[in-house]
């Protein structure tokens, strides 16, 4: 089963609105990352938050991490049509395997 599960699976909003996506995971982590994937393209790293951090900002992105609830959220403020993409969370699950585990993603559609 997936380490990270995003919610919702799909989200449709109007340009200018905020978009919030959530990620839940099952085991202890060192860090949690968010990636974006435009249709037909590879994934692009957005932001990394470490297990000892609670909130991080990067431009219009705000990520929170609650290790007690094993959850994270990604907020995109003032969305633009160009933000239309799938968003994935990824964790390093302290399994000893030196690799990330990706969730199934949230498909965001921003209507112009």
């Amino acid at each position: 089963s997936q380490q990270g599960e995003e919610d919702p699976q799909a989200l449709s909003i109007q340009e200018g609105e905020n978009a919030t996506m959530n990620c839940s995971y099952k085991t202890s982590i060192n860090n949690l990352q968010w990636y974006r994937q435009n249709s037909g393209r590879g994934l692009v790293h957005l932001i990394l938050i470490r297990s000892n951090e609670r909130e991080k900002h990067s431009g219009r992105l705000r990520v929170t991490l609650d290790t007690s609830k094993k959850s994270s959220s990604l907020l995109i403020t003032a969305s633009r049509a160009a933000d239309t993409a799938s968003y994935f969370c990824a964790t390093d699950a302290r399994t000893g395997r030196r690799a990330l585990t990706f969730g199934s993603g949230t498909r965001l559609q921003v209507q112009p």
Partner: protein
Amino acid sequence: NAGVTQTPKFRVLKTGQSMTLLCAQDMNHEYMYWYRQDPGMGLRLIHYSVGEGTTAKGEVPDGYNVSRLKKQNFLLGLESAAPSQTSVYFCASSGSGGAPWDTQYFGPGTRLTVL
């Protein structure tokens, strides 16, 4: 810098045929990964490498083999392709001095169809 490149971009195979996907990175990264992505799903790790000459199994390794003879290249082989291996394959690399679980850089993907 080209980053991470993948060859080929598209391929159609018949059941039982073999092929090799090539991944190359020019960022001097230690760690390289192969993932597959099926429609509407996230990425699943097939195999990975923590350095030249090393490989390790990921989440879904069956039916695939890999080799890392040079630091900059990571090859994924399908010895006898099956329709269940129809997918989009992504290569990624990370860890130029950092931890392997730091930022990963992805290639553009290879779309493989097995008939």
